[in-house]
């Protein structure tokens, strides 16, 4: 008996028990779709976090004040002195002491209200230096960025984020306009290009001022020389760990710390940020994926159950086919094909539904679902494998059945 003939027979048998076959296929389908969607959800969430962190810049190290061992990295309250200073940042910028560091951008950050005429807008005011633009991988939409000279002269200039500019000045443009922050009038010298980043730290809603202006003229207090973060850009991806070592050694020396565990700063790499931020998502994905895999397994047991019922119910048919000359091999093949077709149909339907929902759900909600090719292919392969594996036992039972048992009339 040819394979195509066997397939035809298998399809006929499945069609004969349409309802039962459909329900079995639905079982597998749900399992496969669930796997695709859960993996997609998890992957989507991870991608989202990763793209947020990537929007910080590339090949970045972030140095934050405070010791990771003594105080758990929690900074003191407002106004308390920071353990990182502008001097630290300047030292890191040395090409001799730190050859693997391409750029250094110290940063202070305070929330303040910006007033332009009758409009006001509260946003984050970032004090930094000229290198910030490169280090943070930002681009200018118009005007210029703050310069070293602005920093040296505590110039009353500001560069606005795209959203901030839009909120304060609307379509007429912010360039050469003025804003008032804490009683100081700043002239807008540039506007940043929208980076389109979403989430908690909106890069498009901020006002950048020279770090000296922020410390001396706008906010003052004890944070005149302190900085809240130093962004360090390594020359390239490969030199990231060398840059880390250099920054660490240099800062330990500057702060007079001999024991590295007593360090009053923490260096975090972008990778470790991504890792930390996505680890929860990964665990969730794993957990949900496991649940989905179990539902796929349940679908597989459904196939086996149906095939066993089918074998028991079709004893007469099996016996007749054997009497007419079907070898055990042929009977086994027929039932294996039936189970495999169920697995394949369930898998294909599951992939279709899974991918359909992966495209559909993001249209209705914020959630992004990325379609994982390996997960999709894997689920499809598993679905077919389930049909085959769970078909083996029933098919073998059918193949071993004695023809006389099937044909016995009394």
């Amino acid at each position, binding site marked *: *008996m*040819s394979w195509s*003939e066997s397939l035809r027979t298998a399809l*006929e048998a499945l069609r*004969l028990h349409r309802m039962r076959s459909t329900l079995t296929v639905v079982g597998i389908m749900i399992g496969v779709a669930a796997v695709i969607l859960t993996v997609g959800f998890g992957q989507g969430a991870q991608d989202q976090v990763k793209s947020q962190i990537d929007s910080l810049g590339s090949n970045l190290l972030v140095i934050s004040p405070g010791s990771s061992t003594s105080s758990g990295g929690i900074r003191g309250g407002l106004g308390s002195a920071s353990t990182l200073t502008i001097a630290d940042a300047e030292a890191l910028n040395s090409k001799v002491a730190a050859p693997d560091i391409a750029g250094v951008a110290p940063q202070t950050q305070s929330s303040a209200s910006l007033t332009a005429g009758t409009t006001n807008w509260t946003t984050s005011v970032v004090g930094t230096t000229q290198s910030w633009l490169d280090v943070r991988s930002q681009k200018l939409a118009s005007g210029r960025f703050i310069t070293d000279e602005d920093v040296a002269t505590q110039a009353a200039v500001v560069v606005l984020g795209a959203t901030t500019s839009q909120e304060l000045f609307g379509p007429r443009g912010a360039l050469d306009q003025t804003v008032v922050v804490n009683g100081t009038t700043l002239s807008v010298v540039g506007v940043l290009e929208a980076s389109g980043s979403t989430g908690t730290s909106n890069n498009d809603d901020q006002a950048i001022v020279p770090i000296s202006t922020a410390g001396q003229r706008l906010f003052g207090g004890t944070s005149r020389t302190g900085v809240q973060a130093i962004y360090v850009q390594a020359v390239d991806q490969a030199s990231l760990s060398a840059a880390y070592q250099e920054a660490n050694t240099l800062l330990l020396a500057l702060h007079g710390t001999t024991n590295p565990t007593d360090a009053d700063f923490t260096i975090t790499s972008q990778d470790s940020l991504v890792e930390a931020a996505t680890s929860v998502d990964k665990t969730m994905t794993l957990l949900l994926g496991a649940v989905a895999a179990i539902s796929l397994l349940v679908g597989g047991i459904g196939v086996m159950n149906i095939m066993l019922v089918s074998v028991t119910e079709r004893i*007469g*048919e099996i016996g*007749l*086919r*054997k*009497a*007419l*000359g*079907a*070898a*055990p*091999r*042929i009977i086994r093949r027929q039932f294996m094909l039936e189970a495999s077709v169920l697995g394949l149909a369930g898998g294909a339907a599951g992939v279709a539904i899974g991918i359909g929902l992966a495209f559909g759900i993001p249209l209705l909600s914020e959630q992004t679902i990325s379609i994982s090719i390996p997960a999709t292919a894997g689920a499809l392969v598993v679905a077919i494998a389930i049909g085959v594996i769970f078909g083996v036992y029933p098919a073998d039972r059918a193949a071993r059945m*004695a*023809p*006389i048992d099937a*044909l*016995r*009339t*009394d």
Partner: protein
Amino acid sequence: MSSQALAPGSATLATTDVVLALRDIGKTYTSGELSVEALRSVSFDIRAGEYVAITGPSGSGKSTLMHILGCLDIPSTGAYLLAGDDVSMMDEAHLAHIRNRRIGFVFQRFHLMAQLSAARNVELPLVYANVPALERRERAVEALAQVGLRDRTEHRPGELSGGQQQRVAVARALVTEPDLILADEPTGNLDSVASADVLALLDEVNALGRTVVLITHEPDVAARAQRIIVVRDGYVADAGQNDQRDLQSTSSLKATKSWGPTL
């Protein structure tokens, strides 16, 4: 009923050819502690072209014998030669092949597949013989014509009467041109008119040269055969005797009427 000629070739079988030979066949069913000796030391020959009835009371071992003759089961002891091959030690795959090529079955309950048309039911043994689809179809329609069902090829069993269904089964048994037609109580589920039809068909099949073994507990059905083998308690009580007429020259059925001992 049918005036179409049966397939040529079958008439060339020599009358003295032994188509099947049983030698000291025993069959013991064992289930747990219990064992039933269903057949003991059964020996007989059936020659090509013979029309044999196997009869006996219920529980005497007729069906067991039929299963062994049909290669549906293997004997516990003894040798069974079918067309010269010893089939008593063959594995299931080999037996399936023998059943497919050498034996045509007619069962009491027809055993047709309800979802398939008459033609596709008749095609079934050819499917397992790897006959190409077109030829299969042709041969199935031809076999249905032989049993007088040329205009019923697309009917499903449910749309046919019992007698017609059994004729489809006979067509299915004939389509592979087997050495042996085995009929187990073929009239058991039929009324007298349909029974007469089917028996006449078997007579005709035999008249055209094919070996027919008919299992029945009804004396008047057994009486149609040329020879009656009586089974009792698992042994052959009477192996019967074949008449000496020249089978090759027989083209009518009159010689087969009321021959042999009446039970």
